[in-house]
């Protein structure tokens, strides 16, 4: 089918401007929904970054002296093995420690350059049976003074609170984003329906003179596509802005723990691409379905 570009551009433009209010409403709804999806993902990523050491129920890390004797380490491991309070434990070698370090400081390459595997301590990551504060404190004291142990650190309350708070926030964002996306779908559907209703006489004539269904549908699908595209572009812009504002603010106040919440640009780019693809796909499928649905006017 030869497609007349002039025709398609003209019709799509007319449709977009005929229902200008609805078009804007659809675009804004798409944008809000995608911003919420994006923020939800960013909170997750940030939280994972900020609490990378404390995942999978790890509450205690026992760092050993660099010059710990094999016998001492053996004894420590046996003690962990026998301790009924310990649910699981994991030995972290120098190499693994360096891998962890590289992951934790991936935003600060100068830190990674300054460190090599040799100077990092080996450690045991411990998952206790009871993650309550009292038993963790007791375990910490138990291992602190053992021979060959350099230091025992535990995930403190701040981290736990942060994990649960931001986890909740991220889930909430996602729920609201879901509702927003549903609203966007309904709005786009309705916009296309209105556009088709406004043009029902033209569609009737088009069908009578033998325009193919695809030919009739394409301007409406493009209308949906443009709404999705503009909405998701605005969403991506907002997320970049949000991320850099957050970065500036945290830097100014010197809040180090939260600084990890600023997501590196690489992650942001892939997120943006996904958001745009998602937004456009949803809008286009939705308008195609609507256009087919209402083609029998």
């Amino acid at each position, binding site marked *: *089918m*030869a*497609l*007349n570009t*002039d*025709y398609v551009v003209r019709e799509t433009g007319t449709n977009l401007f005929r229902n200008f209010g609805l078009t804007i409403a659809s675009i804004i709804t798409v944008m809000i929904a995608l911003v919420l999806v994006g923020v939800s993902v960013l909170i997750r990523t940030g939280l994972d970054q900020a609490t990378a050491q404390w995942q999978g129920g790890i509450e205690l890390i026992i760092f050993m002296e660099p010059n710990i004797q094999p016998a001492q380490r053996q004894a420590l491991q046996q003690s962990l093995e026998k301790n009924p309070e310990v649910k699981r434990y994991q030995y972290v070698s120098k190499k693994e420690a360096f891998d962890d370090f590289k992951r934790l400081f991936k935003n600060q390459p100068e830190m990674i350059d300054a460190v090599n595997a040799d100077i990092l301590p080996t450690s045991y990551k411990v998952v206790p049976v009871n993650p309550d504060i009292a038993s963790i404190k007791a375990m910490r004291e138990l291992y602190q003074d053992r021979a060959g142990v350099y230091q025992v650190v535990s995930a403190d309350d701040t981290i736990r609170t942060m994990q649960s708070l931001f986890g909740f926030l991220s889930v909430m964002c996602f729920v609201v984003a879901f509702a927003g996306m549903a609203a966007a779908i309904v709005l786009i559907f309705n916009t296309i329906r209105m556009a088709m209703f406004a043009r029902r*006489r*033209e569609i*009737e*004539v*088009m*069908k*009578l*003179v*033998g*325009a*193919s*269904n695809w*030919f*009739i549908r394409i301007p409406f699908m493009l209308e949906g596509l443009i709404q999705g595209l503009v909405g998701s572009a605005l969403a991506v812009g907002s997320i970049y802005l949000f991320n850099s504002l957050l970065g500036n603010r945290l830097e100014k106040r010197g809040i180090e723990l939260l600084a990890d919440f600023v997501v590196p640009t690489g992650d942001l780019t892939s997120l943006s691409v996904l958001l745009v693809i998602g937004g456009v796909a949803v809008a286009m499928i939705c308008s195609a379905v609507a256009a087919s649905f209402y083609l029998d006017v």
Partner: protein
Amino acid sequence: MIKFENVTKVYKGDVVALKDANCDIQKGEFVFLVGTTGSGKSTMIRLLNKQIEPQAGRIFVAGKDIGELSSWKVPYLRRNMGCVFQDFKLLSNKTVYENVAFALEVIGRPKHVVKTQVPAILELVGLASKQGNYPDELSGGEQQRVSIARAFVNRPLILLADEPTGNLDQATSVGIMRLLDRINRTGTTVVMATHSRDIVNTMRRRVIELDRGSIVRDQQRGVYE
């Protein structure tokens, strides 16, 4: 060119619009469908361009059973069938030229074809001087001429006309009939549903009379009765 084979169409609520209809229309014929309102004239026309489907029987157009046509091929069937209606179905926001050009644009005809075909057809229907006017600036007869121009601009094999003079006075109707006759003389098969006794009796063409969905008369060079 057109063949109805035992065609039956029943609308919702058991309204029988067409009952076991048979007829055979040759290429280049001019056929009047006559009968009272509700006798099945419009149903025959709507069956021909597949706006509706029959419950039984087969309809052939140019030798092909259109009941077996897949839905994506229906537009191609319609490109070979111009349609003219009592209410013109012109687009009020487009000029005469644009209304006719629209029919070519939406079937993907290239611009240079549109630019040569549209003025030629407007000349044929006698509206060359009004191509920049909007439909509501034209008389009923002129509007129907635009509608005929739009139906014929793609040079279809068949022209279907559903009471094209239904809204027009007699003098204007004569002009429209002359135009349809001229189109018929180019070899286009014309099927026209009408209530107008005068037109049928003057033209003396083939007449198919319908009564409550049945073909009761099929007469060469017939009259209205």
